[in-house]
């Protein structure tokens, strides 16, 4: 009882002092410190505007302590290297006042206790709530779209012609146009649910996984080589195949994320779960001579943070690497807290491990290959053990140049060269003890700021962590927790972008305060809620979108809609979209009949224009594939970062060095040269002409029709046929034979805008 009274009195006294201190201290802080150290700018990670942020400290660590030295007072007294305020010094009386205030526990008025990072109330950071669907329609998507269109007195366009529709949905779901037979079956199917049946059939095709894997591989910055200077080949195609299979099996998206982010940390991780972690091993690696390995390891980790931000959170986390984010409430310290999750992979960080530069990896091969590899590896370990034993038996300084060491090293090197053929796919593997993460002052890893522990930004829901240190696995689970407001929204928005050309949020990789607001916020939330509650099924989400009347509309321009909605953001029509790089090739493969349907496997080497690989330091041989591998889908083309295949890069395939969440669609003369003159495309035209010539009927009329059906999935209009007849006549006049004539016609078809466009 007595102690309670004492406590109350002490508290009262404290409150008295505190109140007077507050009133004296605040003007000093306001006049001298707040200009830089406020909640908005927080220079050097420090804000003095709230007690919470003051106690948290800045990038150099805590700035106040009630006992002993503290950075704030030292900086004001200017006794050390850090001198504040910059360029001048406070009067001694004011410094003493601040010191008293620190000793008293930095009391602040109630209104200044909590930190208020601006932007925390931004729409995208609020929970996803399932909205009410405006009116009863068969597909709720249409209800939201129609509701918005009605406000500008517009409605949806009519459904696209059936042939166009099937071509569209086939290209969107599988990346391949339909065959003439598939088209005929669909056109002749009178059942009211013919379209839905077609959609279901497409979703079940293995090509669905290939098409959507490529979309994901853009985000994963997938490439088959290391990048930077040496740009050596790397084994990572097992990861590509893992993505294809996961999508074909409709792996729930939450699991899809967890396995890629932290499959290695799951209990009893399977081979596939390890392969999945190749996701964050797609970062470029620098193995140039004379580098500091730690520097490029740090680059890779920072890239993982940035990629994770863009891929799942729609946040530009990379902006917070050198300073607090200028527009979003992400602090620099929080950047390094996320960094800490991804910082503990057993990767090369020193010169001594140069030989092991691809570690960690997983050997993958057939049983006999695995056996041979296992024996080889055991022998390697034995040699290394023997070397270590020998080294410890001789005096430490004599090791370099010691004949015994040299001889043993020679033996190890020779054994290394005898490694049996196997793929060693890059994976994540956690170090037994995590690296200590710290704030990199100004983003420079050589300038150590305060140590940080793994954690998530404070304006987002907290991490549901069990005991002890939060791990990469905890982080992965947090990304796809039901209360994470971003991942589902970002994912459905990116799917929408593929089906309509633009997302509901146009800035698909920036859901922060600088990003655009959604055109249909309720639809976005509806889709996100539906996605999560439907077991994160991507196929179900894709199906719901392509079943909507909104998706099925005609894409032709409408003058009335253009007047009120010039960019077609309200979707009174579909949009014509030029096919992506790989799909231009795939469509030509299908039209020519050369298409090789094999799923997965090592990357392949279709013809490369002469001289295209002549641009890098280390010239790598391009062994043009023969047989079916010459005719594989574009996504299997070997991707060398320093010399990507021009057929891909000229059609806007990303360069595979940083994450890419949207493809630009450029329109250039070099694309025209490729389709007109490239060896591969000429071969496609020749093959298409043969198909045309071997069709049942041999009249020009019938052949033109056949060509149109094969290349464009529709019969020609009379004017179009007439134009081709004119070409044929001119060719005959100049004495060309049938073979040459129909190659010319085929070249025309494969170069039409319509051929490379999803209408």
């Amino acid at each position, binding site marked *: 009882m007595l102690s309670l009274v004492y406590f109350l009195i002490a508290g009262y006294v404290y409150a008295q002092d505190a109140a007077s201190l507050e009133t004296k201290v605040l003007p000093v802080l306001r006049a001298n410190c707040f200009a830089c150290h406020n909640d908005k700018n927080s220079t050097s990670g420090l804000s003095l505007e709230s007690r919470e942020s003051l106690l948290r400290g800045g990038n150099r660590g805590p700035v106040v302590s009630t006992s002993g030295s503290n950075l704030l007072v030292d900086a004001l007294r200017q006794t050390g290297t850090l001198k504040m305020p910059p360029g001048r010094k406070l009067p001694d009386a004011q410094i003493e006042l601040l010191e008293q205030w620190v000793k008293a526990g930095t009391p602040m008025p109630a209104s200044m206790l909590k930190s208020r990072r601006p932007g925390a109330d931004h729409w995208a950071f609020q929970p996803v709530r399932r909205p009410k669907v405006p009116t009863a329609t068969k597909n709720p998507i249409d209800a939201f779209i129609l509701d918005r269109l009605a406000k500008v007195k517009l409605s949806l366009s009519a459904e696209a012609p059936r042939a166009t529709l099937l071509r569209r949905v086939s290209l969107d779901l599988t990346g391949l146009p339909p065959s003439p037979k598939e088209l005929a079956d669909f056109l002749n199917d009178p059942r009211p649910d013919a379209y839905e049946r077609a959609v279901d059939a497409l979703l079940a095709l293995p090509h669905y996984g290939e098409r959507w894997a490529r979309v994901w591989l853009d985000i994963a910055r997938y490439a088959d080589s290391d*990048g*930077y200077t040496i740009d050596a080949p790397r084994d990572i195609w097992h990861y590509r195949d893992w993505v294809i299979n996961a999508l074909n099996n409709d792996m729930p998206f939450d699991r899809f994320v967890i396995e890629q982010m932290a499959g290695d940390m799951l209990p009893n991780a399977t081979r596939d779960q390890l392969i999945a972690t190749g996701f964050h091993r797609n970062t*470029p690696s620098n193995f140039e001579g004379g*580098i500091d390995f730690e520097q490029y390891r740090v680059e890779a980790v920072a890239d993982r943070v940035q990629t994770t931000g863009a891929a799942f959170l729609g946040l530009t986390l990379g902006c917070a690497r050198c300073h607090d984010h200028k527009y979003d409430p992400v602090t620099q310290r929080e950047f390094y807290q996320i960094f800490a999750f991804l910082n503990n992979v057993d990767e090369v960080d020193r010169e001594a491990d140069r030989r092991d530069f691809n570690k960690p990896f997983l050997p993958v091969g057939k049983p006999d290959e695995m056996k041979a590899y296992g024996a080889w590896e055991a022998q390697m370990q034995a040699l290394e053990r023997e070397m270590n034993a020998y080294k410890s038996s001789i005096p430490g300084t004599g090791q370099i140049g010691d004949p015994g060491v040299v001889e043993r090293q020679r033996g190890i090197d020779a054994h290394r060269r005898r490694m049996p053929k196997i793929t060693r796919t890059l994976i994540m593997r956690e170090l037994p003890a995590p690296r200590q993460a710290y704030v990199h002052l100004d983003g420079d890893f050589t300038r150590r700021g305060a140590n940080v522990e793994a954690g998530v930004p404070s304006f987002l829901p907290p991490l549901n962590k069990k005991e002890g240190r939060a791990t990469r696995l905890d982080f992965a689970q947090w990304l796809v927790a039901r209360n994470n407001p971003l991942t589902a929204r970002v994912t459905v928005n990116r799917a929408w972008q593929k089906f309509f050309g633009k997302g509901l949020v146009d800035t698909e990789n920036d859901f922060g305060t600088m990003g655009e607001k959604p055109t249909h916020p309720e639809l976005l939330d509806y889709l996100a809620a539906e996605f999560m509650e439907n077991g994160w099924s991507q196929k179900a989400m894709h199906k719901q979108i392509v079943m909507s009347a909104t998706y099925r509309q005609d894409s032709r321009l409408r003058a009335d809609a253009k007047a009120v909605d010039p960019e077609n953001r309200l979707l009174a029509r579909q949009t014509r979209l030029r096919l992506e790089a790989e799909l231009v090739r795939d469509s030509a493969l299908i039209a020519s009949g050369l298409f090789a349907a094999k799923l997965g496997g090592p990357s392949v080497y279709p013809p490369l224009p002469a001289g295209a690989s002549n641009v890098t330091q280390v010239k790598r041989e391009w062994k043009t594939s023969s047989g079916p591998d010459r005719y594989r889908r574009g996504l299997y083309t070997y991707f060398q970062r320093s010399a990507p295949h021009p057929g891909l890069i000229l059609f806007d395939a990303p360069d595979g060095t940083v994450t890419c969440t949207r493809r*630009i669609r450029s329109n250039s003369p070099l694309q025209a040269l490729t389709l007109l003159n490239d060896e591969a495309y000429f071969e496609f035209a020749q093959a298409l002409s043969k198909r045309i010539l071997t069709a049942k009927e041999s009249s020009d009329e019938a052949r033109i029709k056949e060509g149109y059906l094969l290349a464009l999935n529709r019969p020609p209009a009379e004017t179009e046929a007439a134009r081709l007849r004119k*070409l044929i006549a001119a060719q005959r006049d100049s004495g060309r034979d049938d073979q040459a004539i129909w190659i010319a016609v085929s070249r025309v078809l494969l170069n039409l*805008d319509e051929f490379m466009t999803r209408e």
Partner: protein
Amino acid sequence: MNPETVNKAITRRHLFRDCGVGAGKVALLSMLGERAFGARHHAPKIENVIYLFMAGAPSHLELFDYKPELVKWDGKPTPESLLKGKRFAFMDSFSKETPKLLGTRRKFEQRGKSGMWISELLPHIAGVADDLTMLHSVCSENFNHGPAKLFANTGSFRPGRPAIGSWVTYGIGSESKNLPGFVVLQSGPRGPRGGAALWGSGFLPTSYQGIPFLPAGDPILDLSTPKGVTSDEQRQTLDAIGDLNRSRFSDTGDEEIATRIGQYEMAYRMQSSGPELIDISKESKETMEKYGAQPGKASYANNCLLARRLVERGVRFVQLYHADWDHHEDISKPLDAACRDIDQATAALISDLKQRGLLEKTLVVWSGEFGRTPMGEVREKGKIGRNHHIDSFSLFMAGGGLKPGISFGASDELGFSPTDEKIELHDLHATILHLLGVDHLKLTYRYQGRDFRLTDIKGKVLQKILA
């Protein structure tokens, strides 16, 4: 609307709508682009840039930055104060024992009326000394070749940013209607480290990427009509494609089709302008000798001549890479050879441009990705080379808008650090853009929520070298 007008309309619309950018909004999306619509921020001093990139990093101490004091201290251990806190490439081998200073063995002389110091290794370049604007004390931010080349070309040592030539053509387009606006040529024993990333368009549309030209055969990939197809037939094929595309355009109203029609026409024009460009057989004997060029030979000399032909034809940005200048092991004979490769043709390019009145509107830049250490590096007994050095190195420019015959910036007595103005590569970028009439602060592109620029958060125009 004819395709030409449609083209303009669509490219403008495209940029306004899709890119949401600053000055670049008014640039052309088309790679070949016509003259941009007043995209410049001020009157330009130059129209074209020829950037001679010396891949591997030439030694400023053997070529341009004369350091008699370093010669005096040759063989002495490097003062520790210089090395403290510094990071170097090959740290493990380089720092095992204190490296020794290495004075140059080359003779330097003051050249021209300006009295610029240039070494005996570059007699031809010494002959145009009065046309050069020499910069000393230039620094870089990364001491490894690949990343440093990225930095010199894109303003960031991390991959993923657009190259300077991409920024320029994005900002102000190109005069040439028949050739790409940003062309890359290369010579030497190997390609530059980093490859395509050095001239990639990063987050800008890929139509702005640098297009590597091949020195023989087809200068541009897929430029030749396929075997067995006559040029008449190619024309007929193109006409049919154009007509059918036009009919699709009237059906759908999609202006992208109109753009494509225009691009196919440009492609056709390139099929004749490309071969015409690389056919140097009509150049006079005198010119060929001046450069040391030989028809059909892949060489730096031929590339210099091609560079002149490219700017003559209105190509905005030409970049030459010549490897290899990475003289760790031996700074004697291998350096002689590299200098012989480039000396005559570089000087010929400058004087030829001048003679033709093109130097006034062209900027020639000669630079590596960094310089080389004042300390010697011994990798092999009996030989001595120099390691990578980023604190201070030299480069030169020549051309319109600059004060000729001056040296700007200075390094200390050992050629280690700047004493005078520290010049960053961002400053070089800002200055190149300035000469082209572009404000480096205003040429931006929004990507991932941020307005990016070539000079990142830095860069200042080097006012003191401007005429």
